[in-house]
C-alpha cells in the first residue's frame, strides 16, 4: 500500500439535465464517501453551466454525472466544451441509461469513463480512484 494517500480526494456528483432519477447518483455518492472520498452532491436539474461553475468553485478533482433521460450526447458535449472554455480540466465520468453503442462517442468527446447499468460499486470506486491518478 502506498503511504502517500492523497489529501483531498474531492469529487462532484450531479444529475445533469432535467432528469430526476437520482437513485444511482445517491448510491454512488454514498459508496464513494464510504471509500474515503469527499463528495459534493449537487442534486437534480443541473445545467452544464451550473455544473462547471460548481466544479470550479468547489475545486474538485473529478466530476461524475448521471443521466437516464437519453439526452446524454448533447448534454455531455456541452459540458465538456464549457469545461474546456472555463479552464476546468478534471476527468468527467458519465453513468446512467446509455446504449452501449453511444459509449465510444462519449469517450471521443473526452469522457474519462462511461458506467452502464449494473456496474458494481467496487468498479465505480476504482474508476474514480483511477481518475484521480491513484491506481
Amino acid at each position: 500500500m502506498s503511504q502517500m494517500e492523497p489529501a483531498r480526494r474531492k469529487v462532484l456528483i450531479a444529475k445533469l439535465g432535467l432528469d430526476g432519477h437520482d437513485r444511482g447518483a445517491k448510491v454512488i455518492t454514498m459508496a464513494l464517501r464510504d471509500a474515503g472520498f469527499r463528495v459534493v452532491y449537487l442534486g437534480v436539474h443541473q445545467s452544464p453551466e451550473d455544473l462547471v461553475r460548481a466544479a470550479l468553485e468547489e475545486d474538485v478533482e473529478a466530476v461524475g454525472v448521471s443521466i437516464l433521460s437519453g439526452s446524454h450526447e448533447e448534454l455531455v458535449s456541452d459540458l465538456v466544451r464549457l469545461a474546456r472554455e472555463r479552464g476546468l480540466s478534471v476527468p468527467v465520468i458519465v453513468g446512467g441509461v446509455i446504449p452501449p453503442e453511444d459509449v465510444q462517442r462519449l469517450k471521443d468527446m473526452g469522457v474519462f469513463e462511461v458506467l452502464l447499468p449494473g456496474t458494481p460499486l467496487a468498479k465505480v470506486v476504482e474508476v474514480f480512484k483511477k481518475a484521480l491518478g491513484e491506481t
Partner: protein
Amino acid sequence: MSESERLKRRLEEWEREVVAPLLKRFPERKSLFTTEEGIEVKRLYTPLDLEGWDYLEKLGLPGTYPFTRGIYATMYRGRPWTIRQYAGYGSAEDTNERYRYLLSIGQTGLSMAFDLPTQLGYDPDHSLAWYEVGKVGVSMPAVTEMDIVFRDIPMDKITTSMTINATAIEVLSMYVLVAESRGVPRAVLDGTTQNDILKEYIARNNYIYPPEPSMRYSVDLILYAAKEMPKWNAISISGYHMEEAGATPAMEIAFTFADAVEYVRWTKERGRLDVDAFAPKLTFFFASRTNLFEQVAKFRAARRMWAKIMRDWFGAKDPRSMILRFHTQTAGVLLTAQQPMVNIIRTTLQALAAVLGGTQSLHVNSYDEALSLPTEESVKLSIRVQQVLLYESGVVDTVDPLGGSYYVEWLTDQIEERAWKYLDEIERMGGMLRAIKLGYPQREIARAAYEWQLKVEKGEVPIIGVNVFAEPEVPRIKVLKVDPAARERVVGRLRQLRESRDQVKVGTALDNLRRAAEVEEVNIFEPIYEAVRARATLGEISGVLREVWGVWRAPEVF
C-alpha cells in the same frame, strides 16, 4: 386434544424425526431466508402460523370490507385489467403513431408519457429544455400538440392515463379542449391524471413550486374534477417511484398512504366536502417486483389498510371510498442491461404478481428499457405477456387464488404490520408534508437503496447476468432513438402559434391567472384552463405561477 394441539405435536415430531436428520445429510442452501423487506421466511407455514386469525375480519369476501381479496366481487371473471403501456416520445406525430400501433395489437387503454420540459413547465425552446425535448415522452407545450396526438383515436371510448404532476392542470386542460372540439364533453371523459406532487419531492423530483402551493394546485384539480368531470380520476397516488428509488415494499405502501392521507385532509378542508364526495375518485399506482409472494402480500395488505384508513380515520360510509383501485408497473429497477432478453422472464413474473395481487391496470416493462425507450417490437412482447396471463394462464378464473395460503396470509399480515409502523411514525411527525420537509422519507429510501446495492455487491441478492451467470459483453440490441427532427417540428409549430394567436387574449388570461394565484381561496383550475384555451403555452403558464409561488429547492438531506 384440540386440532391445533395435534398439529403442533405433529409438527414438532416432524422437525425432530424428519427434518433434523435430513439437515445433517443435506443442509439448506442458506442459514437464513429473507424477503426483500427483510422478513425471515420459515421453511414451512401451517395453520399454526394463522392462529387466532379470523377469516371474515382479515379477508371478508371480494367486493366487501376490508377488500383484501379484491375490490370487485367477480374480479377478472367479470372485468379484465386494462392493458395500459406507458408510452410517448418525440413529437406529437411519433406519439400518435405509437398509440395507434399499441391499440392495434391489443392495448386497451392509453398511458401518456410527457417529456421532462412538459413535466417541469418549460417550453421546448427554453435553454434548460432544449436537450430533453421528446426524450422520455411527448413534448406538449400547447393544445395544438394534443390535437395531433389524438388524431384518429376515439376520445369518448378510450381511457387515458397521464403521468403529469406539476403541470397536470395545463395538460388536462389541453385534453379537455381537444375532446370538446370533437364533440366529446368533459363530463364523459374517462382517465387519470397522476397529479401526485408529494411523491415528486420524495422520489421522482419533477416538482416546480414549494409544497404548499403545489398541494393547492393538486387539490384544486381534485375539487374541479369532483364537480365537472365525474368519470375522471383526478389523482393517482404513487408508490411506484418510491420503490424505484429504493423503498422496501412496506415503505412503498406506507409512504403512499401517508401521501394519500395528506391529500384527503387537504381536499376535505379546502373543498369543505364530505370525504365520500371525492374519495371514490382517488386512485393508486404501485410497482411489482420479481419476489412474487411478497408482492402479492403487499397488494393485499395495501387494500386492507386503505379500507381501514378511509373507514376508521375519515369516517367514509361509501364503500367506493374504501376500495383501493390501482395501476401497476413492473419494477424498472430490476431490468438489466446485461442479457436483456432475461428481462422478459422477470417482467412476466412481476406481471403475474400484479395480477395475483388484483391490479386494475398494468404496464409491463419491455426488455430493452435498461438501455432506452422500448421499440415497437419490444413493447409488443410486453402486451403479449399480459395477454398470455389473461387468456392462457387460468390465473384469472377465480378471485384471489392465493387467498388462504398460510404463507401468503402470514406475509400479508407481516407487511401490513410494518407498513402501519411507518405510517404511525409519519403521523407522529405531523403528516407527510412535514416529514418531507424534514427529509424523512427521502432519507429512508436512500438508505434502503444503498443497503440493497451493498447486498448485490456481496452476492446476497443474486441478479442473473449481473453478479451471477454474467457474460463479458453487453450485447448490442436495436434500441429506439428519438428523431432529432421531432424537436424542430415542435418548436416550429410553437413559434407559429405564438405569432398567430390573439396576444390580447393571452395577456388577459395570464393576468387573470396571476391574480387568481395570489388569492389562496380561488380554485386555480379554471384560470389555467382559460389561459390554455387562449393559446398560452405551458411554459408561459408555469412561468406566471413560478413568479407568484416561487420554486422549490430540495432540502439539504443528502
